[in-house]
């Protein structure tokens, strides 16, 4: 039986001269492996299907005209396409609660990360809620993860670190040196660690007590020491 399936979808890759548009089911059969399934399916190969065949032709004949192509657009939509949108998305992602973050994802469910894991990730990006109410101040201070971007002059990758895991400038710089020397061969004396504080000013790290630094740092940059 011939099923003429005049599907209007483009088929740019035609393997071995196969043309789904013109030869329909017969050609699929020629590829082999179809016999067994056809036997089992039975009805697709016999005359009783004539009625359904007609509805198929009707269906596929009208395909491009009447149909909204809404789902098809999803394939061409790329997440993170525009610069502006990306930055905006990043900003909202780190400060909003989990519901808003979901809406910001341009592609639902991609990348395929379990909701459970995403929620933990989001919790880690925010200050822990409810701790102050429990009056466990010590844990409150210990608990907050503070993520800060660190950029090094001449290196493409901007890293994000949790400043709370360090307890001194020394431990911070040691870790940064280890991290960035992988990306760029350098002599540590050639570089200075600078940071942007809450007022937006760029300062050299190390002048104020560590705890004050932790509370005011917004982001950091490692720059060449020209002095």
């Amino acid at each position, binding site marked *: 039986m011939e099923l003429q399936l005049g599907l209007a*979808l483009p*088929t*740019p*890759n035609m*393997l071995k001269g196969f043309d*789904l548009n013109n030869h329909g*089911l017969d050609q*699929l059969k020629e*590829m082999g*492996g*179809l016999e067994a399934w*056809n036997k*089992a399916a039975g009805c*697709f190969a016999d005359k009783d299907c004539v009625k*359904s065949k007609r509805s*198929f032709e*009707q*269906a*596929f004949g009208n*395909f491009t005209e*009447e*149909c909204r192509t809404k*789902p098809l657009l*999803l*394939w061409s939509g*790329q*997440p*993170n396409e525009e610069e502006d949108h990306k930055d905006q*998305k*990043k900003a909202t*992602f780190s400060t909003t609660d989990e519901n808003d973050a979901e809406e910001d994802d341009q*592609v*639902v*469910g991609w*990348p*395929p*990360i*379990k*909701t*459970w*894991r995403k929620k*933990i990730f989001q*919790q*880690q990006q925010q200050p*822990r809620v409810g701790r102050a109410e429990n009056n466990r101040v*010590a844990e409150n201070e*210990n*608990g907050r*993860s503070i993520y800060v971007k660190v950029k090094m002059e001449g290196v493409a*990758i*901007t*890293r*994000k*670190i949790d400043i709370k*895991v360090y*307890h001194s400038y020394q431990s911070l710089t040691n*870790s940064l040196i*280890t*991290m960035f020397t*992988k990306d760029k061969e350098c002599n540590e004396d050639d570089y200075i660690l600078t940071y942007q504080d809450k007022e937006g000013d760029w300062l050299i790290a190390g002048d104020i007590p560590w705890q004050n630094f932790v509370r005011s740092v917004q982001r950091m940059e490692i720059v060449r020491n020209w002095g």
Partner: protein
Amino acid sequence: MQKKMAYSFPDEVLEHVFSFIQSDKDRNAVSLVCKSWYEIERWCRRKVFIGNCYAVSPRMVIRRFPEVRSIKLKGKPHFADFNLVPDGWGGYVLPWIAEMAGAYPWLEEIRLKRMVVTDESLELIAKSFKNFKVLVLFSCEGFSTDGLAAIAASCKNLRELDLRESEVDDLSGHWLAHFPETCTSLVSLNISCLRSDEVSFSALERLVGRCPNLRSLRLNRAVTLDKIANILRRAPQLVDFGTGYYAAELQPDVFSNLAGAFSSCKELKSLSGFWDVVPAYLPALYSICPRLTSLNLSYATIQSPDLIKLVSHCPRLQRLLVLDYVEDSGLEELASSCKDLQELRVFPSDPFGAEPNVSLTEQGLVAVSLGCPKLRSVLYFCRRMSNAALVTIAQNRPNLTRFRLCIIEPKTPDYLTLEPLDVGFGAIVEHCKDLSRLSLSGLLTDHVFEYIGTYGKKLEMLSVAFAGDSDLGLHHVLSGCESLRKLEIRDCPFGDKALLANAAKLETMRSLWMSSCAVSFGACKLLGQKMPKLNVEVIDETEPPDSRPESCPVDKLYIYRSVAGPRFDMPPFVWTMDEAVRILH
């Protein structure tokens, strides 16, 4: 019958022999030998596994297997993990519990995955099964700590309570106090998913202290680092431990107390938890690292140098779950230190950022594939890949059985040649002859599916996203993959032809999921009509599919084989393509 078979055994002997046969496949084979074996087998089957709770009804199971003690059920399709299945879709366990309450009073074990469990269901379990021992709720939802309190209070011989990755309405930490003082039977307790900061810590300590057989304990974030030592000292026999919150100001006495407590756990082989880690506390683990076979650091935001130090102390590691902070350098260290590694999972620390925030590339995976001869299972999130790397991995590790690669940006080509990754994945299926699970990503044409159909003869589960050019891709898979049980597809240009031409194949599989593809409503109806043993369900949250022309593609499609017929607990946004039911719907 002319003569009695010389070798026919009395039923009791056969039953005794069958009791040694545990695997479902073997049991199923046994039951097909002859009628009397079928009868004997069904009366002595104690464990049932139902991979799709809608494939069969509770009554049918009970009718065939009257003496079941242990049941395992799975509900929602796998893509529910990624929010592709709307809330309210289904997967309710209550009907099962209700039927089993009457039929299986001696039921001991219930294991559920991706099902909706209510407090009512938990209360019914607590009330109905006098010898109840094991409750595992994996990725379940719908219940609260009130339901858990009922289980704790009533189940006198409870051995396992494992709530891994479930969504629990955490109303109060006091449910733990409902375990009676007489309960000493716990072997496994996993409460890591409870998100409240309250837990009745004293109740937990006492519970742990009075259960000498406790082997596995996974705590939640409410348990702070300073409390870990107390718990461990009460349970030095632990084999598997999940920490709570592993961060605190570095204090020497807390550190040494913790290190001492860990070193007293001579059987400890598996660690997990590690939310909010302070690296300075990691050396407290060094005494047990040489024995560790499984380490889950996938929530720990620690950087590569600290990870490398830790991993280099664990030569016996078989299983590692970690964030991409491990970077290529960390994976190279892993490859040189951990020759027993069988499973590696690398998760993204910043999945929604457009730029890479860590130096993790295909090189890390190549290094591990070269250095770890026993590597079988991989889950790897990264931002770039090349055909050359995939071919190398395939040639290095033909013993891979599970390979799941997620290149974060959809349709990313080979970064060196800008070609599709068809050849790379083709090498994976060609060389890894026992590959049973595969997830694809990156730029892929119909060619990759040709390779998969040709070589993927042992492939049981395939996940596809943003791939392929035409129906030919789907046809290759459905016609070539003989062992295929689960196929899940999203955002691919697969339409009606391949699906209808391979309709019979669908009866040999557990299920097929297709979302944002090109399957028309008309084809779904046809499939539903012609294949009575398949349930064809269309999911559309915006409007009924028949309000548009039949040629229009459906939003989401879930097809699964069933002997129970169409289900009747569907929400308004799910349409079944069974003719009779549709008319009534």
